[in-house]
């Protein structure tokens, strides 16, 4: 009896591993930043190199940080959704213009519309590294207490926003962990 049960058992274990392996989302890496203080940055503003913007100016407020670049195909894909989310005005969207050229980025906003309250210019991607960015577009939700609540990698859609972000907004605005 064992002669048959053992191979069948082993086969079942193998199938189990493969099944869960297939079902797992291997594209999205867990961010170690969740639940931790959002990295503070100070960069020049995209629209004015003479002025700086720091996310510490938003202390006490919940905001979304969206990492984008004019070279990024997925960013073009999600742009309509960002415009819609900005129009709803639930929470301000800050842009982090990542590894980009200032002129190309400004052209992009002019052509496609600007969902951001402000875009910070991270031309050499240093702030991106602090935020653990590995592929634009990435979208972070930061709470009023300055902690990162959620990260979404890949283009955002209005559906993802409503299902995954909106339920977190009251918590984000209250500032509780």
């Amino acid at each position: 009896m064992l002669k048959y049960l053992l191979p069948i058992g082993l086969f079942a274990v193998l199938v189990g591993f493969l099944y869960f392996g297939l079902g797992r989302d291997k594209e999205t890496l867990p961010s170690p930043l969740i639940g931790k203080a959002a990295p503070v940055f100070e960069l020049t503003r995209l629209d004015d190199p003479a002025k700086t913007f720091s996310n510490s100016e938003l202390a006490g407020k919940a905001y979304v940080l969206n990492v984008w670049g004019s070279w990024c195909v997925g960013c073009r894909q999600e742009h309509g959704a960002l415009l819609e989310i900005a129009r709803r005005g639930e929470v301000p969207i800050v842009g982090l213009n990542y590894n980009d050229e200032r002129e190309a980025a400004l052209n992009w906003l002019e052509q496609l519309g600007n969902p951001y309250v402000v875009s910070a210019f991270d031309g050499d991607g240093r702030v991106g590294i602090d935020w653990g960015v590995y592929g634009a577009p990435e979208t972070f939700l930061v709470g009023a207490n300055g902690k990162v609540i959620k990260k979404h990698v890949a283009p955002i859609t209005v559906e993802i926003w409503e299902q995954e972000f909106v339920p977190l907004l009251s918590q984000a605005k209250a500032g509780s962990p």
Partner: protein
Amino acid sequence: MKQLLLAAMLTLFGFQALAIDKAPAFEDPVQQARYERLARELRCLQCRSETIADSNAQLAADLRRQLRELMAAGKSDQEIMQYMTDRYGDYVLYKPPVTPRTWLLWAAPVLLVIGGGLVAAIVISRKSKLPDTDPADPGLGAS
């Protein structure tokens, strides 16, 4: 002949120059060796199966720059790896650390050897208990 030799040399040794920076990062050969070793221990998260020493991706170039700067600032290997994992998680390490989530990965080879050894031992001991005079089993001597 000279050209042939040159072509052979380029084919054989050209790969060493691929992807990594155009110029050595450090003048000191010890630091340069350390830089190359650390670059091989960090994963390019854009391309996943490449280290930042092998990858041409923008992110790999940015991480190499970061590595150079951290080394120039006198950070230890451990501090540099901590800096990277604080930002990117354990996945940035090309060699995964032993954690509750990865112990099976590390233990798998040992478990497989033990399991295989057990199966082999059982099969061998059973076979050896068979009578030598069994006409159905020609034994090891026959071919």
